[in-house]
């Protein structure tokens, strides 16, 4: 006969407590983890060959090592092939401590600045992100390292978008901006010049071309917030007033959000567009199921590749539409390089950045189709494009340069842009899907954004 066994409550609590806390630590998405230490270098530091001759006396950074936190992927790595030339010229070495895509790199930088674990000199940077790093006191102002003469060849709007609090924080490497891409084989005789025309064109294409969606937008995260930002700006709205009170629930914001909702309700956008990001919308276009939409210039070579694209040679590009505000849309951003405050080799880091963003670096990247930051390189490119066999080559370059000079608009240069987007985009999705009326949705989002800004010390 067995007697009833019992485990003391204390023993049980010990065991289960350890199990639960252990599993929680293992699974909690870093909210319960300490910010990680910087990654081991993904690229082995260059080791001098034993037979290499001693460094030439007089090389400015002889024996120094510049540690770099860099973006990778796409065509971004090509530029780094120039680095051995800089090493040869200066006597310094470049060591990559981290390479990742833009969002990975940003996440890593935010964590490193928050944890105070920055041990690199040069950091990849972006116009949408650098304000976070400035707020975290992670970056070194660049005004002492770059003279007005050094900056004179850069497109002015790009440099303006790298300034905050009257200081320069980023040296622009290249940029991207969107233009209207429209199919020329679906009955659209010219590009829409206003957002009202854009909406009408999208509805017409949907009605007259079974199986084709009139338009689309990337439907989540910053991609959606950014598109909303540029449409409502063209319609005469602003995200904030001059006291940082949210104003995107203005009539201009409501008109922009209503356009998204009405296009979706009419079936003029793919039913799963709220799950789309950049590569999804690009794939939709090359699959030939989209009539007109706004897209970054950077995808151009993919769209014109007959092996990959069903719309190669069947589309044209145009400046983004205007709205009631009388300005063209032009959500844009640039990639660049910054020097960290914790850098040990600031002079060498500045010299490396100058080298990477030089005419030589820009020309190398321009050959890959990247929109570079120097005016002189653009002038040269446009001249060369006159002899191109690609019918859109010259038009594309001239359009991109025009937009960079006149339409280039970044989101507000504040650290709260991404947290704000994090509040805004689910509400925009609700509006698109018909869960909430545009005015009410934007009012609710404005209240939440105001609360967030208040906590951040803006009022």
């Amino acid at each position, binding site marked *: 006969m067995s007697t*009833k066994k019992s485990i003391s409550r204390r023993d049980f609590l010990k065991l289960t407590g350890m199990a*639960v806390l252990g599993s929680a630590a293992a*699974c909690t998405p870093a909210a319960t983890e*300490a910010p990680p230490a910087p990654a081991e270098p993904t690229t082995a530091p260059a080791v001098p060959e034993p037979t290499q001759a001693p460094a030439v006396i007089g090389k400015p950074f002889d024996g120094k090592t510049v540690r770099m936190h860099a973006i990778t992927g796409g065509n971004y790595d090509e530029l780094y092939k120039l680095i051995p030339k800089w090493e040869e010229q200066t006597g310094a070495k470049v060591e990559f401590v981290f390479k990742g895509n833009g969002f990975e790199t940003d996440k890593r930088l935010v964590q490193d600045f928050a944890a105070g674990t920055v041990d690199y000199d040069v950091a990849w940077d972006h116009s949408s992100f650098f304000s976070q790093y400035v707020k*975290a006191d992670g970056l070194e102002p660049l005004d002492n390292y770059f003279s007005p003469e050094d900056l004179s060849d850069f497109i002015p709007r790009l440099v303006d978008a790298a300034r905050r609090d009257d200081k320069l924080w980023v040296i622009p490497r290249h940029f991207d901006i969107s233009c209207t891409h429209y199919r020329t084989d679906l009955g659209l005789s010219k590009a829409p010049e206003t957002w009202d025309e854009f909406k009408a064109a999208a509805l017409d294409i949907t009605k007259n071309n079974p199986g084709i969606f009139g338009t689309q937008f990337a439907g989540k995260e910053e991609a959606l917030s950014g598109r909303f930002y540029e449409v409502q700006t063209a319609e005469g709205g602003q995200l904030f007033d001059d006291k940082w009170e949210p104003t995107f629930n203005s009539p201009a914001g409501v008109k922009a959000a209503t356009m998204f909702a009405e296009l979706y309700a009419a079936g003029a956008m793919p*039913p*799963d567009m709220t799950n789309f990001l950049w590569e999804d919308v690009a794939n939709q276009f090359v699959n030939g199921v989209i009539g007109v939409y706004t897209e970054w210039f950077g995808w151009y070579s993919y769209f014109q590749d007959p092996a990959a694209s069903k719309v190669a040679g069947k589309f044209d590009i145009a400046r983004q539409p205007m709205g009631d505000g009388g300005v063209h849309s032009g959500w844009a951003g640039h990639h660049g390089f910054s020097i960290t405050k914790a850098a040990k080799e600031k002079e060498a880091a500045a010299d490396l950045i100058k080298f990477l963003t030089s005419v030589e670096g820009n020309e190398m990247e321009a050959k890959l189709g990247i929109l570079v930051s120097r005016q002189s390189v653009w002038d040269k490119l446009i001249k060369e494009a006159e002899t191109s066999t690609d019918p859109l080559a010259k038009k594309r370059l001239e359009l991109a340069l025009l937009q960079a000079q006149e339409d280039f608009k970044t989101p507000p240069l504040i650290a709260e842009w991404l*947290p704000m*987007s994090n509040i805004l985009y689910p509400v925009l999705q609700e509006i*698109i899907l018909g869960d909430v009326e545009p005015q009410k949705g934007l009012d609710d989002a404005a209240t939440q954004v105001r609360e967030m800004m208040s906590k951040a010390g803006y009022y």
Partner: protein
Amino acid sequence: MTVQAQRQDIVSKKGFSLQLPERHLPITLLLPSIIFIALVVGLPMLYSLYLSFTDYTLTSGSNFHFVGLENYKHLLFDDPMFWKVFGRTILFITLAVNLEFLLGLGIAQLMARAIRGQSLARTLMMMPMMFAPILVGLQFKWFFNAQVGLVNNILYTITGTAHLIPWLIEKNLGFISILVAEIWMSTPFMVIILEAGILSLPQEPFEAADIDGASGWQKFQLLTLPMLMPFVYTAMAIRSLDIARAYDVVSIMTGGGPANRTELIWTYVNRLAFTGQQFAMGSAMSYITVIFSFIFTYMLFQNVLKSRWAGEMGEL
């Protein structure tokens, strides 16, 4: 020679002595591991617990302040999204665990009775467990794609008309879609545990029931299921905690969206703590969740123990 004497002999031959009483030896040997775990797990957890009582954000730098229970109060009383997400997570766990249990029990019964091909069936059954959750998420994201997905294509083949059903977007379909992916991925775990339980059951009660003329259903209801309960509770406890951590599959398939329609607790924590930069708030939410998990685990283990005691006392 006793074990103790042998050990002392070895130690003296090696020329050193630990000079420890027998009862301290285990804790001494375990101490390095305990210290290591305390450092890599305990300290970060304590630090995040501390941060959950501050207004720390990822861009605060060193400029943050102690705010007491403010974050906890905000989440519990002022953030309707937290309770919505929490409730959805509970529903998700409940449906997933119970459906996995029913499916797992049925498949385990069939496999335990199979005369041939048991090994092959077990290997095939384990295949979903071999995929990384991220791959499962990508696979099901394609299955449920509105335009080129497998499910809509099957519907098109059957009905002859195009169905652009946005599985991952529609209010309830999105939730069902991530539920299907989770069940597909984890039912094999239930099968393995339950089949092991079924194969370990004593045969005498079943032989007695056969002599008494019990039907198959009666044997299942009155013998198999009660005797299997310790296995059932163990499997359900493990799966419940596992699903409560669901992140990868949901993140890949829907990212918790659209419009928060498929947001579960850990996708919300991630969105709040990282994209939203509200690290302290994210930490507070993690701890609330951990406390609920702790209570849930306690209750579940109580049931495991009860079912075992009941079995041993012959009450079943």
